[in-house]
């Protein structure tokens, strides 16, 4: 059983590493990198399901009967491009968070939020964003 | 012979990867990644000949074309870019 499944074990380890990076790291960009790794794991899983021994790429030719399944390829092909689109969105949000809080560490962002809550929400209007940047960058 | 080429390329990939892991510093890693890209092109080409399908070479061709984009990106966005806007060091030389 293990012999026939070996590729899935690899895929699972990759997914576990990716998820670990997403959860345990506080840095938002690092989280996105972990998400990318997890994505690669999922892609591999789908493609491995479609693969068949001695098969060919699903481009029909004369005299060839065995092809890999095209459907996983279609799904993953679009998923890669969607993946880069979502990654870019995540990165854009990370940049905005950095500009607002002066950090992209999750813990520090949460701390700052808590501090802001204690100070009252009145401070958090248009000028607060700019002040946040200054405070974060010039702090020790 | 082709199988031997595949194995040689895999070995070379593994060695290059070790250099990419240990670094030290950005440039050593960049160099390793650059070399690794070439290895990937060769690997895909060998697989293409092994399986006798000409369209596999398209992928190797694409890699040969865009291989150095990421290297350039790092150079440009980390290093060159510090020189371009209102530079302090770039003009001193």
């Amino acid at each position, binding site marked *: 059983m293990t012999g026939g499944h070996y590729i899935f074990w690899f895929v699972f380890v990759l997914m576990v590493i990716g998820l670990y990076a997403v959860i345990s790291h506080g840095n938002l960009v690092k989280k996105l990198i972990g998400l990318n790794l997890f994505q690669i794991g999922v892609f591999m899983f789908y493609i491995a399901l479609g693969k068949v021994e001695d098969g060919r790429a699903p481009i029909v030719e004369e005299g060839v009967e065995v092809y890999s399944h095209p459907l996983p390829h279609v799904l993953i092909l679009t998923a890669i491009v969607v993946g880069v689109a979502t990654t870019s969105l995540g990165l854009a949000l990370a940049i905005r968070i950095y500009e607002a809080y002066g950090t992209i560490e999750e813990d520090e962002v949460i701390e700052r939020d808590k501090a802001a809550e204690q100070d009252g929400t009145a401070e958090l209007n248009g000028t607060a964003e700019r002040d946040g940047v200054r405070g974060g960058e010039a702090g020790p | *012979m*082709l199988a*031997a*080429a595949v194995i*040689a*390329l895999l*070995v*070379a*990939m593994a*060695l*290059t990867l*070790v*250099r990419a892991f240990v*670094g*030290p*510093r*950005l*440039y*050593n890693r*960049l*160099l*390793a990644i*650059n*070399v690794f*890209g*070439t*290895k990937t*092109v*060769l690997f895909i*080409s*060998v697989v*293409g*000949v092994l399986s*006798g399908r*000409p369209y596999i*070479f*398209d992928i*190797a*061709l694409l890699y*040969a*074309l865009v*291989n*150095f984009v990421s*290297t*350039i990106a790092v*150079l440009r966005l980390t*290093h*060159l870019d510090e020189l371009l806007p209102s530079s302090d060091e770039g003009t001193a030389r």
Partner: protein
Amino acid sequence: MSLSLLIDIASGALLLAGCLLVVSGAVGLLRLPDFYTRTHAGSLTDAAGATLLLLGLLLQADGWQSGVRLVLIMLFLLVTSPTAAHALAQAARRDGERLPAGDDEGRR
């Protein structure tokens, strides 16, 4: 018959030489003491090894479609790989990557 044998031998020799260069380049990349010598090992053997390997493959390729693509791969690789290595070395020099080995203090 003899021609095909000759082609096989030639392609085998080219592939072997290419493999040797590629592996030795990788070993050099790993073992050499500092960045610049590593650049030397990496980029030189890369270009030469890739060319030899692709020539060897070219002799085995069936049909002009594969042949044209292999030639194109070779040409593009010969443009991009040394360019990247050159830009890298230049940037490293500019950035103050020093010659002696094992300087780890400058890490970011």
